């Protein structure tokens, strides 16, 4: 189970992204790149700074939803747990958006 986002500020702006949303964005980029994404692609795709990207990739690896492959260049892919999470997330997102709720 991926932990929830950090407590949101009282007056969050529409552009504020929770930790949970950033995790999902990273995993979405990896999935979009045929489940083999280099850090640079993830960095641009998920719109993150280098430091934050490294931090989040480490956290996702510790959660067991992504894995690091490749010998010379680092390449990230989703684990089976990560693929299942994304499938569930897609259903939940579709359900919530049917009611007009953003997650």
């Amino acid at each position, binding site marked *: *189970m*991926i*932990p*929830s*986002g950090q407590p949101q500020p*009282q*007056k*969050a702006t529409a552009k504020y992204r929770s930790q*949970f949303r950033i995790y999902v964005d990273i995993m979405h980029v990896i999935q979009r790149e045929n489940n083999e994404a280099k850090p640079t692609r993830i960095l641009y795709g998920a719109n993150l700074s280098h430091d934050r990207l490294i931090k989040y990739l480490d956290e996702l690896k510790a959660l067991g939803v992504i894995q690091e492959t490749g010998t010379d260049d680092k390449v990230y892919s989703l684990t089976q747990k990560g693929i299942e*999470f994304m*499938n*569930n*997330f*897609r*259903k*939940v997102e*579709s*359900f*919530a*958006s*049917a*009611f*007009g*709720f*953003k*997650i």
Partner: protein
Amino acid sequence: MEFIASVIAIAVAYQALRGYNLSKERTLLYLNLSFVLIGAGLLVDGLSDLIVLLARGERGFLFVFNLGYTINFLAQLLAYGLLVFAYLYQTRSPSSIALAALPVMFIQRNTLTELILIFLLVYVATQTAMNYSANKNVNALLVFGAFASLSIAHLFFLLYILIPTFFPLAHIAQLFGFLLLLAMLLRVNQPA
């Protein structure tokens, strides 16, 4: 009809709970609580109708019918109030959030509270209509159709006091609304 609607409401509540467990998004928790209340209310109403039916409408059992209807009504009042709260919560407007607590002040069932319930439902239907106009997707259309149908059903429940013909029509509109929610659930859960 109430039993079918109750099962569908609980299914929607379950899906919302799954979403909340995954994302910890509070609006999904409110959606879950709202549909738990709707499902429980409809179940109590259905059971009370069944008891009266089995007692072949004996006068002594009529209070059971009224009790079931009142519990269902209050559950729906709270549930739709909670849904309005969820929509207001999303906009993070503290002053308007207080408005959603209004139904709690009217816990007695009468024409005024019936009108408040219709107002809450129309508000939710409007929000879902705006969502559909922004997204233009079938699931959003089904949810809008469901709440529009439920609004009409409650209008018919109000009118049935004057014209009894509206009673079966109200039940049909209510069931149709829940069937639209079921269609949305089935679409959301179909394999990619």
